[in-house]
Every structure is written in structure tokens, then in C-alpha cells.
């Protein structure tokens, strides 16, 4: 590991992950009381096994932040509902209103998490489907090429960027390494 972390970071990570695994155990058992001894043992083992596979990240975290997710989820749910309604309307319509088009959209999001998040998100939003990533440009298939897809995609990009803390670490490491 490039950056060695203080011990207490591992203890904190282990505690949180054990709690998370216990929560999953509770869900899997559907709240039945039995088997908590097993649950605790396996939750602890799972958390221990996860440490070498996914070491605790240095600050700031690479993934989305909790605060960011709380802002993003309502936006995403509403937009993906619109996506479903839009496509359902077209599928039920007798004349099948479609004007498919493919555009190349230049990404301004950082590689890694933010990009993956963006690509997966737009495939559930109204009329857009990520097809492939070519360098810094993403090929997007549109159900309806009219309107201003670039503007809509830019707005989603801003929403996604808002999920993450700008990662100076990752950038620096990339340049040096």
C-alpha cells in the first residue's frame, strides 16, 4: 500500500463493516430472533476478510458521500420514474413515436467512480442509454434525438459530481505514478 494508515483507521473500518454485515444478516433472516451467535461470528469474519480486499480508503473517500447520496436519491428516483413513463408511453403508442439518434458526449467527470456512476445513471433516465466509452467521450443512444440532449446530460453530470468530494489524492498519484 502506498499510504500506510494509522491502526485506529482499521479498527474503525472493522467496526463499521461488522455492523453493516450484521444488518445484512438481520435482513436475510427477515428479523427472526434465532441464530444471532452465528450472525455475529460470520459478520465479524466477513468484515475481517474485507479488509485486505478493500482497505479503508484515505480521506477523502473515493466513493459517493452519505450526504451526497441523500441529495441524489430523490432526484434519481423521480428522473428514473420519468424514464419509465416516457418509454412506456412510446411502447403503448400505436404509431410508436421514436426518433433514435447517437451522440458523442464529452465527459467532464473524473475517471473511476464518478464516471461509472454517471454511465449507469443515464441508462435509467428518460431517453438516454450509455453505449460505450471512448477515451473522454461517451457514446449515448437517444430514443428521441430532438431537443437538447447535451444540456440534459450536463445537468445529470453536475448532479453526479455533487456526490463526490473532488479527489486531489487520486489525481496527484496518477500524475506521479
Amino acid at each position, binding site marked *: 500500500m502506498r499510504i500506510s494508515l494509522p491502526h485506529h483507521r482499521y479498527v474503525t473500518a472493522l467496526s463499521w463493516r461488522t455492523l453493516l454485515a450484521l444488518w445484512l444478516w438481520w435482513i436475510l433472516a427477515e428479523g427472526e430472533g434465532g441464530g444471532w451467535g452465528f450472525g455475529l461470528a460470520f459478520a465479524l469474519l466477513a468484515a475481517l476478510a474485507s479488509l485486505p480486499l478493500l482497505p479503508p480508503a484515505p480521506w477523502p473517500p473515493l466513493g459517493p458521500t452519505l450526504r451526497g447520496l441523500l441529495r441524489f436519491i430523490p432526484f434519481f428516483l423521480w428522473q*428514473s420514474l420519468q*424514464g*419509465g*413513463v416516457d418509454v412506456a408511453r412510446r*411502447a403503448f403508442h400505436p404509431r410508436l413515436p421514436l426518433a*433514435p439518434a447517437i451522440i458523442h458526449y464529452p465527459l467532464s467527470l473524473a475517471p473511476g467512480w464518478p464516471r461509472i456512476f454517471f454511465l*449507469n445513471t443515464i*441508462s435509467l433516465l428518460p431517453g438516454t442509454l450509455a*453505449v460505450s466509452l471512448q477515451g473522454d467521450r461517451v457514446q449515448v443512444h437517444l430514443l428521441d434525438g430532438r431537443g437538447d440532449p447535451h444540456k440534459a446530460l450536463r445537468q445529470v453530470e453536475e448532479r453526479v459530481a455533487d456526490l463526490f468530494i473532488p479527489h486531489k489524492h487520486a489525481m496527484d498519484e496518477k500524475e506521479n505514478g
Partner: protein
Amino acid sequence: MILALLATVLIGAGLIFFIAGTLGLLRFPDVLCRIHALTKADNIGLGLVAAGLALLGGSWAVAFKLLLIWLLVMAAGTTAAQLVAGHSQAEDER
């Protein structure tokens, strides 16, 4: 009573989206358009059905399990959409 009614409405709405997704899969003219239909409509369909069932399930643990299943299917669905789309596009270009 109100819960049961709300659950019926949610599940019914979910079924409409499932039908729409299948209809799109059958009616849309090319494979990329069909991916849109199936991914977006079925995602909402399953979400609504799961939400309705969560109301009937009678426990938080069941509700969370349904949410977990929906999230997994959603993640698989949207990743799959992109992989299948990219794959079919690559095949076209050859």
C-alpha cells in the same frame, strides 16, 4: 385496509410497466431501442411491485430485503444495458 389498497395500486402500476417493457421488447424497431424499453420500464415495474409487497410484508426486515433485491436487479439491469448495447454496437461496426 388502507395499506392493502395502496399495495394493490403500487403492484398494479408496476405490472403496467412490466407490460410496457415487454411490449417495447417486441415492438421497438432495433436492438438499442429495445434495451431502453426493457431496462427503464422493468426497473420501475419491479420497484413498484417491491414497494407494494413491502407494505404487505409486515416487517422492516422484509421491506429492506425487497429494497436490496430491487437495488441488485437495478444495478445488474443498467450495467447489462450498457454491456449489451456496447456489444451490439461493436458487432455492427465489424
